[in-house]
């Protein structure tokens, strides 16, 4: 009788522990998903600020390109390239482009036996905005 009662408790605890573990995994996954989306949104906001600078100057200066890259690096982005971006001054009214190619770090979850492993991976992103020069 006593033994059976203990067995019942053990089953209860196992269920609770697995439940709490699953919730923790899901919570961690949710937090990571929101962080990644938030960073992607922030990167787009950075791009918006710099397309306005390109509009008013007619090009993206080397100094502003450096600042743009630093802003994206602060958000965790790597392998940032600006190829295709308007880097030389154009005439008032001409097309201007800001094309950012970069890698966004993301976390992947892998269950290895009873170990939950966080693996760092990278996702390629392209942010492009087009407008006209107003220099």
């Amino acid at each position, binding site marked *: 009788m006593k033994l059976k009662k203990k067995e019942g408790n053990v089953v209860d605890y196992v269920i609770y522990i697995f439940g709490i573990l699953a919730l923790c995994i899901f919570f961690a996954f*949710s937090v990571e998903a929101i962080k990644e*989306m938030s960073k992607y*949104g922030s990167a787009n906001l950075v791009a918006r600020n710099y397309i306005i600078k390109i509009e008013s100057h007619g090009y993206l200066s080397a100094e502003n390109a450096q600042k743009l890259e630093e802003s994206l690096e602060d958000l965790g982005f790597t392998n940032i390239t600006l190829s295709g971006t308007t880097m030389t001054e154009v005439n*008032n009214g001409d097309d201007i482009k800001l094309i950012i190619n970069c890698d966004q770090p993301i976390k992947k979850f892998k269950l290895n036996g009873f170990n939950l492993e966080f693996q760092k991976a990278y996702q390629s992103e392209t942010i*492009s*905005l087009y*407008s006209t020069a107003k220099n």
Partner: protein
Amino acid sequence: MNLKKKDGSVISGIMVLIFMFAFAIMAIFLIAKYRVFIEGQILHNELVSSNLATLGSKDLDLDLMSQYPNVVQLKDPNLTFESFQKYLKYNVGLDDSLMPIKNKFIRGKVIIKEFQIYNVNSNTGDVTEYDLNPTTLSFTQIEHSGEKGNLKTPNGNVVNSTTIHSTINVTLDTVFGHKQSTDITDDNSILKK
């Protein structure tokens, strides 16, 4: 006694499962809601860039500006709308029929619901409004005599200088195959230096 204990375990297990399931569903919906919010912000940036692109010198009435340097107006609503469509397609990633080609979240055609131009004559205070009919893609011209500083756009912004108002409707993916229709709108004005 034994039976009661087993019942208790089963009930506890079911309760834990229900709680986990409810938490998971709630978290999925919150993530989806946040994703729609972020995607809406990105689309808003893209719409603003498209609006601002139409306020370039190619679409401005330079002849009028050479006569009256204070008067900055758009010369032709049809040309302005063509520019708007061109840059909207570039910025959002749409094909010629405004269907998404690169956007991961938009489902179906992007609809231009509203497109209005407010040409302001700073000397007289007169405002000429051009309203696009989205079905016929033609403009209705409305004159507002001396209404500069009084006239408001559909977003409630006062028209003090030449302004573009646009609204697009997009259908975004949410979760479990559900879609959400959202309007993205903004007003952008040109201010002379």
